[in-house]
């Protein structure tokens, strides 16, 4: 028990910070912040960003980075939107449900291609991840802009909006999807053989390869996993905004990296927890929503999140150093 607490110190600190933030916001916006309505509102918003952040975390745990995660989400959404619109044909074509099902399959298929593209260059050609994904960011974005000419695509079945706006027993569907994604990601990354190999690759790729693990497969898997997260997030976003456009969510890329690092994942790889990222996403959401409700200039939101990130990392750094010294 004590060992567990020690190992996950950073996550408990984050949890404590989240609690403090909730209490402070509750004071600052009395009777409005700590309400079912606001939690539902934050639940609607948090899912798409949280899922992207989990997709980013898995890649960063291998010591890589995925700068094209949002772009692959949007490219997949745009293509599936075109497909859905064509098949639905304003109500004259296919029935709503099969049309949406095909749309979802197309989203996953396109995202899979994006993931294989990134994974191929990183795992099999050996190009540095930041270069590969910076390049693919431009490629995916370019393709998306070209086929849409910069405008948004909409006109799919009304029912599709329900994914992003509907609730089950008062809980947003998006939140339920997010919870399932968290569980799956936790099992895959922290409780599976492949998951262990992610940390090993992030720690020391060469040593891992020589110990008989197929590091290429591990890396390829990570980029595909990341792309699948992008697909899920893309579906939620397309539904919530009732349209798809090349630049939706463009601010999520850097935020997802920030959430990963705030969650305790080392930017050089080899460590980190899914739940750390999830708590970090919740912290960013509470600050962002709280400041919006308080109508504070959006620049201060960015500043506050930046300060929280630096503060928490500084604490982590000093505590880790002390631990190292104590061990000696």
């Amino acid at each position, binding site marked *: 028990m004590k060992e567990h607490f020690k190992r996950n110190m950073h996550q408990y600190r984050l949890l404590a910070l989240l609690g403090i933030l909730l209490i*402070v916001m509750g*004071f*600052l*916006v*009395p009777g*409005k*912040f700590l*309400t079912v*309505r*606001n939690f539902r*509102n934050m639940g*609607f*918003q948090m899912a*798409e960003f949280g899922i992207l952040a989990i997709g980013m975390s898995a890649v960063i745990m291998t010591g890589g980075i995925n700068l094209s995660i949002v772009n692959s989400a949007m490219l997949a959404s745009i293509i599936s939107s075109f497909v859905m619109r064509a098949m639905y044909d304003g109500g004259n074509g296919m029935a709503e449900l099969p049309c949406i099902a095909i749309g979802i399959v197309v989203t996953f298929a396109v995202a899979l291609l994006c993931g294989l593209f990134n994974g191929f260059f990183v795992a099999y050609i050996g190009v540095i991840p930041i270069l590969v994904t910076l390049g693919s960011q431009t490629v995916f974005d370019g393709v998306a802009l070209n086929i849409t000419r910069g405008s*948004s695509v*909409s006109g799919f079945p009304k029912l599709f*909006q329900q994914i*992003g*706006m509907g609730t089950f027993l008062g809980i947003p569907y998006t939140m339920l999807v997010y919870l399932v994604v968290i569980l799956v990601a936790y099992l895959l990354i922290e409780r599976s053989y492949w998951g262990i190999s992610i940390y090993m690759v992030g720690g020391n790729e060469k040593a891992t390869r020589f110990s008989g693990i197929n590091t290429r497969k591990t890396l390829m898997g990570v980029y595909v996993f990341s792309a699948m997260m992008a697909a899920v997030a893309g579906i939620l*976003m397309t539904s*919530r*905004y*009732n*349209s798809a*456009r090349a*630049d*939706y*969510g*463009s*601010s*999520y890329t850097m935020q997802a990296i920030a959430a990963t690092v705030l969650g305790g994942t080392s930017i050089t790889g080899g460590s980190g927890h899914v739940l750390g990222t999830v708590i970090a996403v919740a912290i960013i959401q509470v600050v*962002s*929503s709280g400041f*919006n*409700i*308080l*109508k*504070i*200039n*959006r*620049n201060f939101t*960015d500043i506050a999140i930046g300060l929280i990130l630096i503060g928490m990392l500084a604490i982590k750094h000093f505590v880790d150093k002390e631990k190292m010294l104590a061990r000696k």
Partner: protein
Amino acid sequence: MKKLLALVFVLVMLLSCTAMADDMTVVVMPKLVGIPYFNASEIGALAAGEELGINVIYTGPTTGDAALQVQMIEDLLIDGIDALAIAPNDPDSVSPALQKCIADGVLVMDWDTTANADDVTYSIQQIDNKVLGEMLVDLLVESMGADEGEYAIVTGYLTAANLNTWIDYSKAYAAEKYPGLTLVTDPVASDESAQEAYTQTMALIGAYPNLKGILGYSTPAPIGAAMAVQEKGLQDSIAVVGTSMPTDSAPYLKDGSLDYGVLWDPSQLGKLAVYVAYLNLTGAEIEGYEVPGVGPIHINEDGRTIIMADPSVWTAENVDNYKF
């Protein structure tokens, strides 16, 4: 810990005081905050709030990301607002969020950029394209000092829809009202760059020695044209009129190489948005209301579109009054 609690307490007190000061809350949301154009409209919106004694919040995303705008709208609804005037980054993406506002009884309007017609009660637009197009021709004729002669058009991109609309109105008006004016060649593109407009104008001056006037569309075009006229020392023989930002125009207006700059004042646009929201919420008559510094409001036949007024004109005398 005690200090922290005390600090929190003080903050709560401060914030609850500001929150209680006014009853009506109008939110004006630009596409993004922190660029000169939208900083100027912020000044107007906040000034209107003070004049009317209502609570005006000017807030928007730090990047032009439509997703962020949607989140901000949803969050603002939690606190309860009375009106939202939005310049949407994308009309489709904000549509579900705006519908939520309407369901909550919030007055929704758009300003600067139009939203989907079903999502807004009022649509506040900066200018009437026809008025702007015709005004440019009148000002050119005035600066040339004659209603006949050769003139040329320098535009931003040949594909820009808004610029082409203005050019079409200008050409049609010139042909009808001033038959003596001859357009020497098709509009020349300057790629939204003053440098390119300068190069193109130099070429025009060389090719058409009798050129008496230049119309510039897009904000850098008239500046580039004026740079060329200034360099050639032709201030007195070639008139330059176009759509430009006042701070960019000031040096050229003062030495006569640019005769008139025309555009709308974004601060007036912010002000108008707040006034329309206020009038609607208080149930007052909007049509014909005189907004101080902006003029009377006129609602178009569609019952929704409000066009701010005639474009503002910058001259050597008044240009220093504008700070954008």
